[in-house]
């Protein structure tokens, strides 16, 4: 008898335990109510940003905290930042940086040549290009730093303006002051400081205004970084006023284009910035059919990118007409905009001329018994790639080419790319801060590149690239690059599709949104203001 009641008690206990545990786990974590942040936001100007990544694993988060020696604008013109100005020697190998005075880190320590040196050494340890090229970093005086390169590095300033070369202080490293150590403290010079105590993994991070900021304190009291995994949920969060701004914290915009029109009509501010990043389809030029320039050209003419952008992307972005944005400093500004103008009849004729004819009447062209069946590799996670591949499939069918879409986990796709096991590969070109368009030495169209070994390469092009990028003189370099672009476009190494946008939507009470200098850049957030009365 006793046994039985005991069992019953155990059972009851187990049930109660489940309930109590559930309630406790609910209570234990309910200390911070989301209403609280809404309440504090009304008295304080806290900008709530929805982000698709956790604060610590996103590059954008770092641009809120850290700053660089130099910065580039959207087109690739460089200017000083924490370095008031900089001098470059004629051979392009020696850079002298004159640092700003009175810049303070979040822990109160001074920014000077010594900390800048540590920062650059840290960057050198973490960046392949810097590691290769930088010979020495010397402290001249308190506010002057000299960097000597072993070989000319066209992308040196690009790298310095990127998140790979942030200005950090000794205490930020673990172990302290060791450039080979781990960056851990988030102690930068930016307008907001990060408080580790407010950080909840995979949930949020709070950044507070840094009052001693050299550029004058921000108009905002702080920024709240809120993790929202799903793009649909992000839009809902904006509309239900749980966040003030979406889209700013990701480099490729995750907001569905179709929802923009609705957001606009409801009075939300929607800003779209062209960052010069184009989505393109790279051809495998090492084997048939794309070893023939006519086939490449034909395909470039066969796809109506204007229509695609107008319909599938709700006219939010622009069709790309050349390989990379022409307004980049190193961009193809001399290439005819109508070079790849949509003309399916011309495309068909070019294919006919190239020997690809539909001889068996099945709607797919063939040549020497080989069908014009093309394998399009899509790395998973490539934004809008599914949409593009479906559209491409239907468009190219009209000129007699069959596309087999193969979506692969991104590194698996990359492995196929490296092995040349593809006909077409969808990806997006680089943008600032880097040399856009893949024309740098060792870049996509350079024959020694191991990642794009099957892209278009020629000895002629290698020569042109070498000539252009070892030229320290800006004007003559730009001339050489223009010829290079003309040559490259004639070879049609890829099919440019559309300009990848940075798309930011915010609550109308957030005012003064300014486009960042590149797609990672969030430093302009400090310029934002909010009207709390609305």
């Amino acid at each position, binding site marked *: 008898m006793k046994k*039985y009641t005991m*069992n019953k008690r155990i*059972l009851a206990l187990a*049930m109660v335990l*489940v*309930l109590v*545990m*559930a*309630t406790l*786990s*609910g209570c234990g*974590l*309910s*200390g*911070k*109510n*989301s*209403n609280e942040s809404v309440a504090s936001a009304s008295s304080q100007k806290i900008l709530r940003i*929805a982000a698709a990544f956790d604060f*610590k*694993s*996103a*590059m954008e988060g770092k641009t809120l905290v850290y700053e660089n020696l130099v910065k580039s604008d959207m087109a690739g013109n460089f200017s000083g930042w924490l370095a008031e100005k900089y001098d470059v020697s004629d051979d392009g190998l020696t850079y002298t940086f004159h640092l700003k005075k009175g810049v303070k880190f979040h822990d109160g320590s001074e920014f000077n040549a010594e900390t800048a040196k540590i920062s650059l050494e840290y960057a050198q340890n*973490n*960046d*392949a290009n810097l*590691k290769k090229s930088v010979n020495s970093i010397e402290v001249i005086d308190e506010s002057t730093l000299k960097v000597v390169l072993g070989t000319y590095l066209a992308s040196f300033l690009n790298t310095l303006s990127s998140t790979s070369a942030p200005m950090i202080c000794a205490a930020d490293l673990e172990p302290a002051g060791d450039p080979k150590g781990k960056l851990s403290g988030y102690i930068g010079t930016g307008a907001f400081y990060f408080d580790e105590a407010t950080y*909840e*993994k*995979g*949930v*949020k991070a709070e950044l507070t205004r840094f009052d001693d900021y050299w550029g004058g304190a921000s108009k905002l009291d702080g920024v709240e970084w809120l*993790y*929202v*995994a*799903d793009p*649909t*949920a*992000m839009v*809902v*969060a904006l*509309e*239900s*006023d*749980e966040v003030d701004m979406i889209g700013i914290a990701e*480099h490729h915009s995750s907001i569905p284009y179709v929802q923009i029109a609705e957001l606009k009509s409801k009075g939300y501010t929607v800003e779209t910035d062209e960052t010069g*990043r184009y989505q393109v389809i790279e051809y495998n030029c090492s084997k048939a059919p794309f070893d023939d320039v006519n086939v490449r050209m034909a395909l470039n003419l066969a796809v109506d990118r204007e229509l695609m952008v107008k319909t599938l992307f709700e006219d939010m972005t622009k069709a790309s007409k050349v390989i990379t944005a022409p307004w980049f400093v190193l961009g193809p500004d001399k290439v005819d905009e109508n070079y790849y103008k949509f003309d399916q009849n011309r495309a068909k004729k070019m294919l006919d001329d190239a020997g690809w004819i539909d001889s068996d009447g099945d709607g797919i062209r063939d040549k020497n018994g080989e069908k014009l069946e093309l394998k399009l590799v899509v790395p998973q996670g490539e934004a809008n790639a599914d949409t593009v591949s479906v559209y491409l499939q239907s468009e190219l069918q009209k000129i007699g080419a069959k596309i087999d879409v193969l979506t*692969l*986990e*991104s*590194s*698996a796709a*990359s492995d196929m790319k490296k092995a040349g096991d593809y006909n077409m590969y969808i*990806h*997006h070109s680089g943008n600032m801060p880097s040399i856009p368009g893949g024309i740098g030495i*060792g870049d996509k169209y350079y024959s020694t*590149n*191991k*990642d794009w070994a099957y892209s278009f390469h020629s000895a002629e092009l290698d020569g042109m690239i070498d000539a252009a990028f070892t030229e320290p003189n800006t004007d003559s370099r730009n001339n050489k690059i223009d010829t290079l672009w003309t040559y490259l476009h004639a070879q049609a190494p890829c099919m440019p599709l559309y300009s990848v946008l940075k798309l930011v939507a915010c609550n109308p009470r957030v005012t003064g949104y300014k486009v960042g200098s590149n*797609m990672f850049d969030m430093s302009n957030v400090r310029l934002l203001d909010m009207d709390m009365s609305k």
Partner: protein
Amino acid sequence: MEKMIFRRLFLGIFIMIIASLLSFVLLYLAPGNPAENILRQRTGEDPSYEEIELFLQQKDLDVPLLTQTSEWLYMALRFDFGESINTSEPVMDEFITRFKATLQLTLITLAFSIPLAFFIGVRSAANNGGTFDHVSRFFTLLAMSIPEFWLGLMLMIVFSKTLNWLPSFGYGSYLNLIMPVATLVVGYTATLSRVIRSSMLENLSQDFITTAKGNGLSQHVILIKYALRNSLGPIVTAIGSQFGHLLAGVVVVETVFSWPGIGKFLIDAVYLRDFPVIQGFVLLIAMMFVVINLITDILYTYIDPRIRYERR
């Protein structure tokens, strides 16, 4: 009893070894590498050959996977699962933080589902063939047929977007819990109440129920003390196995409502090929399963005197 626990624990160790081996083999076979994926996620661009080399070097990933795994196993024996390649945080810390969130969601779901499922299951078994039974069967079948992500999105549209009553994402307050829990409760209650119903029906058709009726016992006593008491074993087993699957299966809900749990994090880690996280998480989840199964088995022996006395 002790023998059973030992047997179970032994099996559990075996399971964990298999789980580690399995994740190792799959990762070994899998194309791609963490450097490439993590760098791509960070910059949004294809990382160059040099960048990948440097990253691998920095993270000590340039040694063969077999060496990595043997080192990992040696460390895992001391409950040190290394650091995440992506976040550079100890895997154990990541797991504990995320597991707390998942466990919270799971336990609260259970706290609502179990009583509700018992109510529906017992009533519809008692009412076998009657109106309540038919209505509840219809609705439980319907509830089981609704995809969780669909339901989650619909709830979000209605309660966050249109009515603006509940937060669409976030973690930490009761309000944040309502929609994820509701999404899970629907399907889970349906499944569980059907288990309870069929288990109850099975027992209600037994001879001892006739005896109990023949003794003039009331419907209530017969249902609870006779049918339900005897059904508890299979029901507890079902709850146990469902609990395990609930723990692992909240991925969809975690994704829709941005809940910082293990499921979503593990999926991201799989995408990124964050080896230490994958191996550590798989092992720790397998361990959770072992523990849950053990608890279920122990409970079962307490519930069912037949097993209790046989094992004594």
